[in-house]
């Protein structure tokens, strides 16, 4: 039995490797919780990154560390608003370091409704961080090691169309549609993440136009089906919690990462800069960096919303240089 099982699983592993899959880590609530727990031990000199997938992709932690001497704590979550994480930091920690908050306008200003996806996604991780048992923590340590060894272990919370766990394989069997409503186009994983949640775009996105287009289709789907932004409540919420944070000595820096093509057009229509970003910056008075304002922050986005790993490294270097020049970040190595 054992021999058969090993042979079967070995063949399964080889098959997926032959299909181009490699052993990688899943970006899930456990990995996020590791980063979140680092915040509880962090000092005033530490930096945490909040935001959506643009922060994940565009801010490269090694470039940031090289420039500032500090590796930031990555708390950004794909497809999410940073507001629940800010609320958690303000209410549940005494962290007084620097928060760099990525503003993807369609997500930042989307909602304060707890059941809405941009809120629920990070909130689920926050809840898990507090509720996880010691058994779950230990289990993740074992699971993490195995994820790094086997390509076939690739279940993902995101439920990518190319996941290869049993449930995903069943989910991806297509028959005649039965349910009503719009159908999300196939959404394939296009990034890899490491232990520190440093995320890099997979080369296939900028090497294979059809693959990039498949992601662009998904942005189109989200754009068509997203509810209108809820500017007032999100703005008020942010101003309230940001004030509480700065009142206790913390610093906040706002960053608007690049977007282009149809995605940017949509953002301009739904969340025009003057009414959203500019007003946010004016009301908060926080240091703010919009890619449109700096030539050195402008890079192409192969799928309209994120930078490839090489450009992300350069973007991070330039961004940190700008922040340092303005005196909002120092280099702890040279102090």
């Amino acid at each position, binding site marked *: 039995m054992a021999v058969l*099982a090993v042979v079967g699983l070995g063949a399964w592993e080889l098959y997926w490797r032959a299909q181009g899959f490699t052993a990688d880590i899943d970006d899930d609530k456990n990995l996020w919780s590791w980063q979140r727990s680092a915040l509880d031990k962090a000092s005033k000199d530490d930096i945490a990154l909040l935001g959506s997938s643009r922060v994940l992709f565009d801010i490269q932690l090694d470039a940031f560390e090289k420039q500032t001497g500090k590796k930031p704590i990555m708390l950004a979550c794909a497809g999410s608003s940073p507001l629940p994480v800010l609320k958690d930091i303000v209410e549940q920690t005494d962290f007084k370091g620097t928060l760099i908050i990525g503003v993807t306008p369609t997500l930042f200003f989307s909602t304060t409704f707890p059941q809405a996806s941009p809120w629920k996604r990070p909130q689920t991780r926050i809840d898990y961080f507090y509720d996880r048992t010691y058994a779950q923590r*230990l289990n993740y340590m*074992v699971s993490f090691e195995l994820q790094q060894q086997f390509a076939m272990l690739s279940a993902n919370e995101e439920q990518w169309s190319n996941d290869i766990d049993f449930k995903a394989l069943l989910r991806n069997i297509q028959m005649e549609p039965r349910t009503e409503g719009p159908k999300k186009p196939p959404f394939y994983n296009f990034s890899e993440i490491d232990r520190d949640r440093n995320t890099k775009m997979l080369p296939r996105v900028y090497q294979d136009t059809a693959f990039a287009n498949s992601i662009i289709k998904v942005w189109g789907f989200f754009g068509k089906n997203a509810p209108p932004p809820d500017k007032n409540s999100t703005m008020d919420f942010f101003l309230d919690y940001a004030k509480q944070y700065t009142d206790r000595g913390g610093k906040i820096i706002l960053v608007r990462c690049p977007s282009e093509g149809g995605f940017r057009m949509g953002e301009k229509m739904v969340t025009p800069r003057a009414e959203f970003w500019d007003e946010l910056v004016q009301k908060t008075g926080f240091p703010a960096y919009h890619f449109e304002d700096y030539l050195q922050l402008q890079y192409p986005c192969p799928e309209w919303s994120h930078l490839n790993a090489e450009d992300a490294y350069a973007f991070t270097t330039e961004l940190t240089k700008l922040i340092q020049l303005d005196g909002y970040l120092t280099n702890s190595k040279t102090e």
Partner: protein
Amino acid sequence: MLFNTLIFFVFLAIVLLFYYTKFLNWTGKKRMLLLASYVFYGLWNPPLILLLWISTFVDWTVGNKLSKETNSMVRKQWLLLSMFVNLGFLAFFKYGNFLIENFVSFVNMFDVQYHPFEMDIILPMGISFYTFQTMSYTIDIYRKKTTPAKSFLDFALYVTFFPQLVAGPIVRAKDLITQFYEPKKATVQQFLWGSFLLTLGLFQKVVLADGMLAETADTVFNSTNLLHFTDAWVGTLAFSGQIFFDFAGYSTCAIGIALMLGIILPDNFKYPYGAIGFSDLWRRWHISLSSWLKDYLYIPLGGNRHGITRMYVALMLTMLLGGLWHGAAWTFVFWGFLHGMYLIVERLLKNVITIKINAWNGILLAFITFTFVNFTWVFFRAQSFDTAWNMLTSMLFMQPEGMKVVESFDVYKVLGLIGVLFLTHWFMRDTSVKEVSQKIHPVVFGIIWAILFFFITIAQSSGEQFIYFQF
């Protein structure tokens, strides 16, 4: 700790290593098992081990006092102490919020505005199981049906034995404590069979319950719309299969793990969906709970010794409390009520109709039983009566206008799997996995085992909790 996690296998490997090394004598091994059981439980929420300790200490003391005391009044008081502590824990931790909510609703009916202090009560995992198990110990000693454990260690291990601590089977003292008196060691056959049962249980939980049925059941029961009748039925059938595979899977794992240690636990499920009638169902579903309710509730309430009316009242009360045991909500009570009604109607019908069961009418009757059981699962799974009524409306009145929330493949997947489940239960109703395994060639058996293991691995369980842990 959950059986369907990697860390459990690390834990089990360490336990087995210590259990089968020679430097520990039997007492040392039992101490190790007890410590391991506390670790198993404590890795979930360490402070709640205190409850286990209190239950253990109180029932150990009460058991000893009951065995020595001759004054019936004093004996009754000792028993009441045990029941007060155990049922008190249950009442506070499991039913505290439910009782307060209902009290508030009740006083509000008289325009009394009462705002209770909000309590954030954690439900200790498995509390319903281990309190029932320890209560059976003191009640059996009170009834002089068993004697106290020979040592505190034996009793503490009986309360805490990790394979069945959090979701049963609920084992009687005479069946488990006595196994701890003499050194136990699994034979090679027992160890292998135990490993197979662990694999089979995990397959039921990880692949069938979580991998194939849970998502469909969740999609349907989380919908707030009036559903198309196909979707309502598919969701209900999916839950019907999910809860069986989830709970039977846990029990099978528990029995297998204990067997790997040379300890024998009783069966908890015997192909319940192949049952003909509801009395038969309850002899096959969660057997250790049904027999507990029969011995410690139904019979003390009078059973069938005081006439038909009293018997029906006892039966209904037993089922209502059985429903409430599953969860602090009126939907669970209604689930119990439906089962109580089924049992009463079945007994009434048996008085006027006699059917000689054969293969053809048997499978039809089993199918009718299974269909009626599915209606009860609607109340068991639904979060509210509104959802349940919506589901029943869709199921019974064939809502063609209802919303479709289940995709075509999921419809076929659920109907196919539940069809296989029903037929398997029907054909296996008078046999067992062990008997079947002995009839097939060892190579074929090995291939089946390898296939189960393969699917468990590729299912990549993220450690979804077993449904019965919340009860």
